């Protein structure tokens, strides 16, 4: 496949960025989107004449990646107007080039949201998510090792719901795709996975308030229930969890 790539290049958080156009040829339809970017970077580096720029890493396109098997949530990028590209329920590393056509122009942008400042090119700082977790997304008591099965009875449907919420990998696609840059799906998943289980129920009252307050403070937008987040979520976390977050929040306000 021969492709034209329009990729956002930005030196650092303070410099103004712009789109650069690159031509890349002979891409296998079986390779992943990240492998295609690897090939682009190899090409750019081999063409790079300036050794200083090379040592600074200015020549290749910077992008986040880690596990490359869809479970770490690092490889967030906006591809042709969609978070993680046109495929559903996948991260960028799981997106195959066969989803594109020979001769396509592909526009690649970083996540765009005020709480996710750009570090370089396609790499954004998602520390904001960690701050929300630090505000209350944990269980304070030491729950010990893995308990014996059925020592704490949890109904099957609750366990399933909690597991669905816990599938969130914190990639930020929900924020990136939301027209309001709202982090409600992320916060909802983190509140739900704990609220549904006995270990998390102890602190449930304060948790929703603390996490929502932190989310607002960090400058995420307000949810308008468009539902785009659940469509783009690589782990298909449902917006039903947002309804649960709202309930948890109202209950914590009423009881505090």
């Amino acid at each position, binding site marked *: 496949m021969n492709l034209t790539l329009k990729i956002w290049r930005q030196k650092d958080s303070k410099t103004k960025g712009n789109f650069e156009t690159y031509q890349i040829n002979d891409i296998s339809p079986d390779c992943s989107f990240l492998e295609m970017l690897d090939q682009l970077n190899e090409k750019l580096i081999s063409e790079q004449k300036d050794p200083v720029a090379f040592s600074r890493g200015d020549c290749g396109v910077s992008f986040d990646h880690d596990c490359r098997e869809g479970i770490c949530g690092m490889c967030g990028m906006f591809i042709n107007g969609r978070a993680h590209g046109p495929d559903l329920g996948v991260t960028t590393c799981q997106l195959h080039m066969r989803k594109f056509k020979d001769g396509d122009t592909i526009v690649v942008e970083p996540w*765009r949201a005020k709480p996710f400042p750009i570090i370089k090119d396609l790499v954004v700082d998602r520390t904001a998510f960690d701050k929300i977790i630090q505000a209350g997304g944990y269980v304070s008591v030491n729950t010990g090792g893995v308990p014996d099965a059925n020592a704490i009875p949890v109904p099957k449907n609750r366990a399933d719901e909690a597991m669905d919420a816990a599938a969130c990998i914190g990639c930020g696609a929900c924020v990136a795709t939301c027209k309001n840059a709202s982090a*409600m799906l992320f916060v909802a998943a983190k509140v739900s996975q704990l609220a549904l289980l006995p270990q998390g129920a102890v602190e449930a009252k304060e948790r929703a308030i603390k996490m929502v307050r932190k*989310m607002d403070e960090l400058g995420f937008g*307000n949810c308008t*229930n*468009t539902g785009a987040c659940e469509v783009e979520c690589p782990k298909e976390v449902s917006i039903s969890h*947002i309804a649960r977050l*709202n309930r948890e929040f*109202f209950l914590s306000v009423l009881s505090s």
Partner: protein
Amino acid sequence: MSNFLNSSIGKKLIMSISGLFLIAFLLVHLTINLLTLAGPETFNAAAHFMGTNIVMKIMEPMLALGFLVHIVYSLILYAQNLAARPVRYKVINQAETSSWASRNMVFLGIVILAFLGIHLVNYFYKIKFTNDVTSEYHLVVGLFTTEYWYYIAIYVIGAIFLGLHLYHAFQSAFQTLGLNNSKWRARWNAIGLIYSLVIALGFSFIPLYFLISELV
């Protein structure tokens, strides 16, 4: 409490409750309007009852307040949402992930507000602040004639935009209240679709009915 009302979910709760209040009002409004089809006596009696009874006297300022709160909070939320993404995407393909109505609630709201302005001048102002109105029925029907064809167009278009706004609003209000889960989602969507169709078709039907009955 002020902390709660300043939180994102608190502000959304205000949008949801004021919205549901307006949703309830629209049903009452449509029911009364449909009485025009029963003739002048019935509609004038209904209009007289709505204009004079104590409950309506209390509800009238409440309704104005409901509109005001809904509009003011929508603008606050809209401004905050714009600020949350200072640099926009160059390419964004939202049509594949969400409905048009859900993304354009503010635009739809502004169109409805403009329509509301015309609507209030047409009826509310004339009934409340002038002494020209002897029959509410004739005031209503008098506007829906071939001579004022543009008013018919305005009222039908207004009703369609209102229906689109309500289609997203209805299920969104219950989602914000937390009264939703995987089972109820489809139900709220279905009830919301029926409700918005009833409102849009009901309010469009009245001007078109009088236009057609004039023509045939």
